């Protein structure tokens, strides 16, 4: 009871701060300096129609590499933690089979969902979306497969291969930028092309496709690892 009261008091205090913040907030009328720079230069320097993508893949490319690394570490640690002390001797528990609707729906939808994911990451420099979103969509296809059959085994070797190769090529493209263009992860190792075309924005579609594959593989391996606990 006293704990709940303390929690409520804390929430009231935080809520007061939030209310004050909200009451004092006024939206800017103009972009700030950083945003203005990105807005003015993204099209001419980077050639990407989607300015958010230009920021993530090129201007702050190093941070994105770090982000992908963090996600990779998280996926690895999930696999490691769940594999520790895994009991193998137990026979797999038999589960209630998934319904007809789910099984048939999965067969029809899973390839389409994966295709949509590939579309989203290949068009990341033109439309809302990109590698992380596309990767998440691909992983949702994996989730659907796992829902239809929770004991399904995914090839961990395949997932690890896709993940490693995507990571290696990502860093290799970054290093190429160091040699052929202005710096690490510079996208102008390929021609920037015409704004709004599929083959434009230099290396961005390439990098974002690799990020998409990597994120899709990582999230899928997380889901597969978490779902493998079903057997115990």
């Amino acid at each position, binding site marked *: 009871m006293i704990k709940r009261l303390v929690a409520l008091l804390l929430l009231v205090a935080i809520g007061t701060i939030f209310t004050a913040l909200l009451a004092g907030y006024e939206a800017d009328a103009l972009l700030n300096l950083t945003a203005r720079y990105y807005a003015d230069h993204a099209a*001419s320097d980077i050639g990407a129609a989607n300015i958010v993508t230009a920021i993530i893949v090129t201007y702050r490319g190093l941070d994105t590499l770090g982000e992908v690394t963090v996600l990779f570490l998280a996926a690895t640690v999930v696999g490691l933690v769940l594999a520790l002390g895994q009991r193998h001797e137990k026979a797999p528990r038999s589960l209630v089979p998934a319904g007809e609707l789910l099984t048939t729906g999965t067969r029809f939808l899973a390839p389409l969902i994966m295709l949509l994911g590939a579309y989203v990451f290949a068009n990341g420099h033109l439309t809302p979306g990109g590698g992380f979103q596309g990767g998440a969509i691909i992983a949702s296809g994996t989730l659907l497969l796992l829902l239809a059959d929770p004991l399904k085994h995914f090839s961990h070797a395949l997932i690890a291969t896709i993940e490693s190769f995507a990571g290696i090529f990502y860093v290799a493209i970054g290093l190429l930028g160091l040699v052929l263009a202005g710096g690490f992860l510079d996208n102008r190792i390929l021609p920037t092309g015409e704004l709004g075309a599929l083959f434009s924005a230099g290396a961005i579609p390439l990098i974002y496709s690799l990020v998409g594959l990597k994120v899709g593989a990582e999230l899928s391996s997380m889901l597969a690892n978490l779902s493998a606990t079903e057997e115990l």
Partner: protein
Amino acid sequence: MTYMAMGTGFLLILIGFYGALTKRNLLRMIVAFTVADTGVNLVIVAVGYLPGRTAPILDAAVKASEAAARIIDPVPQALVLTAIVIGVGVTALMLAYAYKLYEKKQTLDIARFTELKW
């Protein structure tokens, strides 16, 4: 519009904190954390919104030359994209640890984990 999104974000943060502070079940606490996470993301995106402007994507309607006057701030959106991805990683880790704890004690009640309690 900005106030609505920002207010919803703050409300979600408070709901998440309430859940994390009062629930005893580990899974419910994890859900509460993700709710608070969503709230933070919503607030950050709302900060980048400028009235009367459009999404930071250049096309026939938003020419590159007039982009600075037409688009909203793209930086918070890039930040939130990062935050969402990291949030997924953190949630997966929390779930994995919760599973290991359950395996150890056969319970998800946080009050039963007393090893580090004073």
